[in-house]
């Protein structure tokens, strides 16, 4: 029998009532939010439960929401996939803007290692318990986190790319 999204929701609510919230279906992916403090147990449950069986961690990535309230300025997104029933889910964990910290899931999925390093590299999100949390694609000497929204793509002083006549400013492009 195929795994229904309502089953996933009920199972999670039964076991982690206050931790999981905001269940939605976004296009073909069932999504929900998990309290960032409990990501490790929730993910372990999703992987090891006999009916849920989310055996594959597809993707880990970060998002920056600088305009949100302080406790929700960063998000780490996990895509998981159950290969037996062919169901995908997306888990979002919101983190504090000044002190983004979350448990590493490397102990559950080895593949999370570099993906978490990448997220740290670009967003400065600290993964607690990661075996080797250091920069991966950028150079080690770099001090900023380039995927944060405040980091400019190019030199703001350029004069050869004036788009004001098209109603575009540096704020809305």
């Amino acid at each position: 029998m195929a795994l229904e999204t309502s089953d996933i929701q009920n199972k999670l609510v039964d076991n982690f009532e206050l931790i999981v919230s905001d269940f939605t279906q976004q296009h073909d992916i069932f999504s929900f939010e998990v309290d960032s403090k409990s990501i490790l147990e929730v993910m372990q449950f999703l992987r090891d439960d006999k009916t849920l069986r989310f055996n594959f961690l597809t993707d880990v990535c970060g998002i920056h929401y600088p305009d949100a309230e302080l406790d929700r300025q960063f998000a780490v997104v996990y895509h998981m996939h159950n290969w037996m029933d062919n169901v995908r889910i997306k888990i979002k964990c919101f983190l504090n803007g000044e002190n983004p910290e979350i448990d590493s899931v490397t102990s559950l999925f080895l593949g999370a290692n570099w993906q978490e390093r990448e997220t740290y590299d670009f967003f400065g999100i600290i993964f607690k318990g990661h075996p080797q949390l250091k920069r991966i694609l950028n150079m080690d000497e770099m001090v900023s986190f380039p995927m944060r929204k405040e980091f400019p793509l190019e030199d703001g002083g350029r004069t050869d790319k004036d788009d004001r006549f098209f109603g575009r400013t540096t704020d809305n492009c």
Partner: protein
Amino acid sequence: MSDLLLPPELRYADIIKQRQNEDGSELSILNLGPTHPATHGIFQNILLMDGERIVEGEGTVGYIHRAFEKIAENRPFYQITPLTDRMNYCSSPINNMGWWMTLEKALNIEVPKRVQYLRVIIMELARIADHIICNSVLGVDTGALTGFLYVFQFREKIYEIYEEICGARLTTNMGRIGGFEREWSPAAFRKINEFLEEFPPVWSEFEKLLTRNRIFMDRTINVGPISAERAMSYGFTGPNLRATGVDYDIRVMQPYSSYEDFEFNVPVGKSGDTYDRFCVRNAEVWESISIIKQALAKMPEGPYHADVPDYYLPPKEDVYTTMEALIYHFKIVMGEIPVPVTEVYHPVEGGNGELGFYLITDGSRTPYRLHFRRPCFIYYQAFNEMVKGQMLSDAIATLSSLNVIAGELDA
């Protein structure tokens, strides 16, 4: 003093400590890469060697990082396709089509059947090109240059087909939201048919040259193996995972672009070693050829793009004569298309695994966030584990059979 000025054995002191064997003999450190011809791309491997045997390794990547995800946040949607080209540049049409399909999912656009079939053809051609490179270069790395030179002319033929369809060869920037930029010319179909006629005998000759070749088998069997459990935990997808015996293929699991209309097998290996990866890719080329033939045979009539004036450029003659077309043309070129606030994840079966696009839009002309799930990046982290205890020359063969593309790895 900057760490960079230190000699590597001190600079990477925390990674690899100079150690001694039990018998007192010293281990040495070898820098493989970043610009070694045998690594087929720019990544460095610092290997701790006991004679010719690898004791431990540490990979350093990021030498051609071009900040694609950051650039994508500052570009209108149609300008992101050239970025996807430059990820897995051995099979860029798959990346292009994956990106368009992601956008179409976000914008709820239904694509005509004919476009879906054309996309299948071009994606399978790209997969063949990708596998030609990987397998023939594996031959080169184990000492057989002949096969490489022989099949590489067919990669050129595939590039001529791309050229006929979109004008470009390597970085194709092919397609539009909702379809293709123009109807495929009769020459394109002629070239595809020629390719389907000429390529199979050559590919079977190439297979005969290597598959049961004593030297090749000795060099690849039990070289760089990985178990199915480890591979899944490491996030392997694509031919590298199927070589371990797991039949995970997105074309079957989550058919996109009408893959459900075609009959094909998912070849799997058994032991997950270099030889199995080679055999799986060989078999996949045959499946791809069969899919292209089926798509050509069943090709439906219809338009080459969806009827979505908000997103698809109007014909040029209309732009000069009608007001609406001019407005649409201007808005689309300036990137001002209506985009809903949404989040989508769309995976496609890339040349070397699950290529995913995770797109977050906020209603503006650029993505709020675009994350590429790059299969190479995820499975390359297993490389050190796979070559531990193997000979240096085996590490080279393992690396080329993994089909690690530096452009995709570093994004």
